[in-house]
């Protein structure tokens, strides 16, 4: 008789012991470009030009939707203007629209290396046969 009672009690305990876990996926934050960025690496057709050409003075300052350029070097645009991601959360391209010009878009990589966020863009400022890749980091 005791055995007959124990079994339903155990079953009911098991039933109430299980509680579905509430899984909440962490929210991916929108990527933030705001601030001033400098070039830390530059390649032309795969050849490293970083130490061969003076990129040190170049700065690009992003605000919420605009950018300004100081000390221009060959770049995807040559005037200040507006910028936009294709997707603020998972951006794969970064577009620049200089004042009075059509938008130019670059493939975008946004990795964190050595604790620093890198902005890697690829473009052709002159002949389309030549590909430049700049890696930018926040300037201090």
């Amino acid at each position, binding site marked *: 008789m005791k055995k007959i009672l124990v079994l339903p009690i155990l079953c009911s305990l098991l039933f109430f012991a299980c509680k579905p876990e509430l899984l909440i996926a962490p929210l991916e934050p929108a990527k933030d470009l705001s601030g001033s960025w400098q070039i830390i690496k530059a390649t032309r057709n795969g050849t490293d030009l970083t130490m061969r*050409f003076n990129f040190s003075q170049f700065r690009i300052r992003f605000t919420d939707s605009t950018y300004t350029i100081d000390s221009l070097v060959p770049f995807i645009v040559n005037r200040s203007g507006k910028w936009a991601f294709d997707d603020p959360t998972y951006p794969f391209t970064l577009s620049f629209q200089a004042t009075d010009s059509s938008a130019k878009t670059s493939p975008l990589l946004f990795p964190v290396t050595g604790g620093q966020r890198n902005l890697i863009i690829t473009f052709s*400022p002159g002949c389309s046969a030549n590909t430049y890749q700049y890696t930018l980091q926040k300037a201090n």
Partner: protein
Amino acid sequence: MQELPKQHKPKGKRKITAGVIWKIVGALLLLIIASCSITINNVVMPSSVNGGEILPVTLNVTIETNDNQTSNFMVAVLVPKVWKVAQNATITFTSDITSGDQGMSVIPAGSPAPQGGGLDWPTLLANKIGNGGNLLPDYEWVAFYSNTSYSVVANATIHATVSIKIKTSTDNLLFKPGFCVANSTDGLSSSDRYAASFANCFRVNGQGDLIDFCNPQISTVDPRNSLDNDIITVTFDGGVQSTALDNASQVYLCIAGITATGDSLVVCTQTDDTKMTALGLNKWQKDIWPHKLFNLTNNQRLTGLRYYFTDGAGANKVGYAGGATPFTFTFKCQ
């Protein structure tokens, strides 16, 4: 009951038997591998063509087999990039084991080559066969596979005649074309599985500055295809010939940008903007951004450059072939 005696067989004896068998098999395989070969008997091509004309090349090839195999035939060509051979070449072949012209198609760059360790054909060809002594980097290997695979039997000798037709560009150039034949099974796995041949210096009588891949150049501009908003690298190689700058401790550019309207914008002062970097062995290099060097407005465009090299005082000038005529460079984008 019958298995028991086998289980009690001395292990050592069985190992020796297996070892002997493997040695025999290995020796046979080595014999088969060692005796397969492919050869380019000769290359028939003109010594020059006019720019924009078809360059016809014939390769006479002999393949000797010692194993049954089913593979695609591979033909690759080393050519100037500016020819865009992937779009401008037709390759066919005839052979003892086929009937009529057999078509071939470009192998897309990035497709792994057989037994190539993950490298694609162009990379593998560049690593294994090289550049045939072409001195400018603007060349490329382009590989083609036969549209059909072919079965060959062991101990056969097959003759193939490969017909390559390349539409050249209008550029004025000297180049040493290269050719390679192989198959889709063995790739470039060992030197007897492929054959390569390089032609002598071939001339295209085209338009514009001569692009000379064959002879050492006292000065080059890289990339050849560039516009005034590119960073271009100007080099001076004083080791090619004796010049007035043989003993110069510093070398500077004296350069003029020619605008679309025919104006000449001259930058010929010895400053950091024109100072060249020493690379050793009397080689010098300068990376310039013409747009900034000549302070171009947004509406100005350069069509070309004229330049000399000078010493620190600007007194000794070296131009084309070491003389007084300036080097020239034409901006273009093809």
